[in-house]
């Protein structure tokens, strides 16, 4: 049986856990450590934690908080937010994270990917691309919390990053973020036709039923924020994750 990874994404504003809709209106959810402890109990496949304002506010990663989270994370833990150079990456790995997520630094310093992959291995370097549709329906890549358009087309950017040595792509749809409207399957198709690397997709998941179409469109792993921190359309806060049998029956055995 083939398994795909199902990954909760927690977004932080420094120390606070928040959730956005289309990358806007961050709503306070709670304390990230508590959330990670619950995700441990639920035996989640992996977690991604993104400090979504670190780059915007030109902050360093919050090493103390990250170390605290890592000491409670008994699953693979990827961190992103404010990471700009090799020293920071080395420091993060020493705190006990498995993977580092790069986004805002990529366009101007793609060489960082190559250097980091050489030292820490490609498998630990994730390139995150935030994607938004323009008024003509064309998909463009963005950085710095979705505020700044990247000058490369998505296809070119993906090729460049693969050449530079990233191990994985984290593709986040800004338009879908927090909307519960399903993954952007056209986007997944587009990226997966350009690369053989694993693609983690994020944005739009509302239930376990959204996973299968995303995988069939070319995703290697599915990630979600709202779905795992809220319950129902009223957005009551409840950290949750599908049961293993449910994933096996509804997803893995259908692949």
């Amino acid at each position, binding site marked *: 049986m083939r398994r795909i990874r199902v990954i909760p994404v927690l977004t932080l504003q420094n120390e606070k856990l928040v959730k956005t809709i289309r990358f806007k209106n961050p709503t306070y959810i709670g304390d990230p450590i508590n959330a990670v402890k619950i995700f441990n109990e639920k035996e989640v496949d992996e977690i991604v934690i993104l400090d979504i304002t670190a780059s915007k506010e030109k902050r360093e990663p919050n090493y103390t908080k990250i170390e605290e989270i*890592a000491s409670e994370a008994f699953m693979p833990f990827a961190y992103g937010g404010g990471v700009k150079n090799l020293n920071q990456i080395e420091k993060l790995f020493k705190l006990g994270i498995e993977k580092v997520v790069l986004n805002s630094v990529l366009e101007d310093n793609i060489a960082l990917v190559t250097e980091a992959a050489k030292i820490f291995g490609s498998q630990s370097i994730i390139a995150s691309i935030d994607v938004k549709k323009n008024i003509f329906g064309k998909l463009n890549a963005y950085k710095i919390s979705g505020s700044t358009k990247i000058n490369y087309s998505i296809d070119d950017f993906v090729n460049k990053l693969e050449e530079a040595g990233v191990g994985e792509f984290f593709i986040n749809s800004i338009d879908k973020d927090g909307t519960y409207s399903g993954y952007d399957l056209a986007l997944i198709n587009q990226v997966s036709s350009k690369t053989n690397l694993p693609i983690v997709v994020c944005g739009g998941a509302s239930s376990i039923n959204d996973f299968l179409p995303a995988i069939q469109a070319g995703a290697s792993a599915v990630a979600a924020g709202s779905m795992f921190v809220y319950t129902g359309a009223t957005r009551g806060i409840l950290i949750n994750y599908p049961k293993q049998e449910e994933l096996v029956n509804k997803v893995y055995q259908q692949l």
Partner: protein
Amino acid sequence: MITIIDYNAGNIKSIQNMLKRIGVKSCISSKPSEIETAEKLILPGVGHFDYGMMNLKQSGLVDVLNKKVVDEKTPLLGICLGAQLLGNGSEEGNEKGLGWIDMDVVKFDKSKLSENLKIPHMSWNEINIKKESKLLEGLDNDARFYFVHSYHMKCNDEMNVLTNTSYGYEFTSAVEKENIFGVQFHPEKSHKFGMRLLENFMSI
């Protein structure tokens, strides 16, 4: 005391975190004198085979490890690259391995993988237990572990195969020979399954 060998190749802190969680005190060391007195050893590792092996040599650890593991029979658990280093060598590089277990490390055979199975094998997967072992007490074929690797172990003596795992085809995911254990997956990142495996290792 359990000693996690620090040779500048990998996820040491995660292993210590997990050990702490199961109530085991550990120390991280790169000093031959400290490794000499260890009751049990963990050889972690992430990255390139040659880089790992060269770091072990440059840290002056190979002799003391041979003495501890081969002569004194101190239990050792290799994790990921640390498991691969127990063998003769790897297709990934030119360095010889520690040579304690008669196995080679080979790249995943892409021709046997369908298109949707990517390399590295980066996912949770199950184990198919091939022989009884204290290391796997309380774990069955439903136990899940986190894997991330592009090369896998291939034993020349089937007796040393502890578990296989299927990814396109069956490959060896854990090995055991006397006091020497190696797991391709990451018990320190595999929830209760990994906790149980590490607890089992502690009671060997």
